[in-house]
């Protein structure tokens, strides 16, 4: 069966510091991968998605970037964190594009607090 792992679960970082959140998926090949941010009262906002290695699409302009160095690895990064980057970050995966009409499956999330 497929599983998705996100780490760390909780992170406290000072303003201006770098960020690296990692997400890996097991049990599937060539998944679509997604990074969301969940803010209180604002639901889930799609930040990035990827349909393959090295293919990253950004949905909203921001201080963050994403990379997909391996098929089942998705990394969310920042060079210098802002206070506004605080939030709950969720990684998700879905079967590849040739299998449409499939739901997304979410990781446990990372709560990021910027001080």
């Amino acid at each position, binding site marked *: 069966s497929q599983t998705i792992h996100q780490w760390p679960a909780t992170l406290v970082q000072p303003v201006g510091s770098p960020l690296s959140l990692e997400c890996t998926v097991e049990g599937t090949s060539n998944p*679509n991968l*997604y990074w*969301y941010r969940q803010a209180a*009262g*604002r*639901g*889930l*906002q*799609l930040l990035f*998605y990827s*349909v393959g290695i090295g*293919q990253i*699409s950004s*949905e909203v302009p921001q201080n963050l970037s994403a990379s997909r160095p391996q098929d089942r690895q998705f990394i969310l990064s920042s060079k210098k964190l802002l206070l506004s980057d605080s939030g709950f970050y*969720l990684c*998700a995966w*879905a079967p590849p*594009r*040739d299998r*449409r*009409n*499939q*739901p*997304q*499956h*979410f*990781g*446990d*999330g990372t709560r990021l607090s910027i001080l």
Partner: protein
Amino acid sequence: AQSVSQHNHHVILSEAASLELGCNYSYGGTVNLFWYVQYPGQHLQLLLKYFSGDPLVKGIKGFEAEFIKSKFSFNLRKPSVQWSDTAEYFCAVNGVYQTGANNLFFGTGTRLTVIP
């Protein structure tokens, strides 16, 4: 672009009461619709989904949702809620881009509190 509206931000019910959470979307084409649930301290889980066919779909834990195309709605229902249904509920709409990424657009969520 797709958008999803959940008009109920916080719903408080007593056990055994009936539940209906509203979800409306805006998209002119064919849609896939989802309800996700997030229990306290847990990850987001799929509750039910609609792709095609019978507009009344049944999910886990006694939940169901009805797709009404003319109203662009996909309301979630449960005839009798339990304390364990306390959670946040998210409605989502599928947006299929040329890349086939099957991106989801989420509503802002509805927090359900069930009082024993």
